[in-house]
């Protein structure tokens, strides 16, 4: 007999893996890993606002992260500072403001640790709606814009010459990442969300020869990592996020070794 909370956690984790894998390909291709990390850090401010004003935490996170992304785009247009500097400022500012705001909260049941590293005990049915609702949107938009986004990744001007609105496409990618960050917090935690985006995609890269198969394999590897990680988390009573990422990292190591050996042979 499997407990309900484990099933909920598995359902949530599978949903996260299925969207994070394909989107993660763009994070790897477009070198957006630091952006993902920054976005995730700013999510803490969303959580704080959610708890302070009693709005849904997922919603609070989406709002704060989307504002973060748009603010970044606006600052980038001014071309005064490099993107990584801007990200560093915005991310740490949001993280700090979030922590300051949380300290005003006199909620004994608040467990920062579970937000940082994920906790399968906290997954509720309403979270599943968020994950699968948001997930369907992410996958739908990704499939619709797949060719344009891939072409833009290979050559921005070429995409523009062929009618892709690259400004809009960039914002779309950021907003999709926002959704993934918001729905992943329960399972993997703020600090480890980026790894769900990049490790499965990076593992898949070593096996494939087309962008589409990389997306599919990234989802598959994410799925395996989630199932292995949550099982381990239940078995050994470890935090879910680190358990999932450990599983993903082991897979990455295995396939990297395999790829090196195969190339030598």
């Amino acid at each position: 007999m499997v407990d309900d909370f484990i099933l909920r956690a598995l359902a949530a984790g599978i949903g996260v893996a299925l969207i994070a894998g394909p989107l993660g390909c763009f994070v790897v291709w477009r070198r957006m890993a630091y952006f993902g990390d920054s976005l995730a850090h700013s999510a803490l401010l969303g959580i704080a606002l959610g708890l302070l004003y009693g709005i849904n935490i997922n919603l609070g996170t989406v709002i704060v992260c989307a504002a973060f992304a748009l603010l970044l785009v606006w600052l980038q247009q001014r071309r005064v500072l490099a993107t990584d500097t801007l990200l560093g400022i915005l991310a740490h500012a949001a993280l700090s403001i979030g922590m300051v705001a949380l300290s005003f909260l006199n909620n004994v049941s608040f467990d920062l640790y579970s937000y940082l590293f994920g906790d399968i005990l906290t997954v509720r049915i309403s979270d599943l709606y968020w994950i699968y609702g948001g997930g369907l949107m992410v996958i739908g938009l990704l499939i619709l814009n797949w060719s344009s986004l891939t072409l833009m990744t290979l050559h921005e001007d070429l995409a523009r010459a062929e009618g892709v609105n690259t400004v809009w496409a960039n914002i779309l990618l950021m907003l999709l990442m926002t959704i993934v960050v918001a729905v992943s917090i329960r399972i993997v935690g703020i600090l480890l969300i980026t790894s769900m985006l990049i490790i499965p995609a990076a593992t898949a890269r070593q096996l494939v020869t087309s962008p589409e198969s990389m997306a599919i394999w990234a989802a598959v590897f994410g799925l395996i990592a989630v199932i292995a990680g949550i099982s381990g988390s239940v078995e050994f009573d470890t935090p879910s996020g680190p358990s999932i990422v450990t599983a993903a990292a082991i897979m990455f190591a295995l396939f990297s070794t395999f790829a090196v050996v195969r190339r030598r042979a």
Partner: protein
Amino acid sequence: MTDLLSANHISVYRDGKTILEDVSLSIGKQDFITIIGPNGAGKSMLLKCMMGFYAPSRGDVARREGLKIGYVPQRLVADHTVPIRVRRFLTLRKRAAKDALMKVAAETAIEEILDQPIHVLSGGELQRVLLARALLDDPDLLVLDEPAQNLDVTGQLAFYKLIEKIYAERDVSILMVSHDLHLVMSSTREVVCLYHHICCHGEPSMVTRDPEFISLFGNDMARLMAVYNHSHDHDHNLDEAAPLHDHGHSHDHEHMEKLDG
């Protein structure tokens, strides 16, 4: 309107500098126009405006309705993190029938590499792949932004020969930015010399007869501009990015004659 694409008195000012000043240029059917000029002369900006990537501060760009443009960028930095084969790259966002694809592949001599990942290709192969992609839609106009800049001399020669062949065999107009005027002389029909404004334009045959002109062109664009200065009543100060002089006269043919003689 017979023009496929035209820039009408466009000016671009950015960060207090004049990048383009009152530039007009039009491309008609069967035209083959090459834009030349020193680095920082605004060649890329002119192309960006004409492609609609950048809105000029003044003036406008008119595009014939339904015009199909094939764009060939300077280079494709093939990123090894993106796994993609040539065949898939060619058909991203494009619906091409198999025989149409094979026909273009034959035209650009890339049949052999269709199933290779793009990150293993040589510079010349990549440029041919980009050209093939531009040709897939059967464009009315090919726009090439220094398409051979990153190739060695043999590669450049081969690439321009290919462009010439395509121009001869297809019903296509060509607008190209190039540094290698000595290589494109034989194929281009018209040369536009740009230095923030259009300094001169005309048939290359008129200038090719002057050996000094050719030797200067290959080596040092700046010195070429100095040659022009002798027959001008205005100065180009190459140290200043933006000459803001008044310039209401036409002196195109004057140049050519002086250079001929």
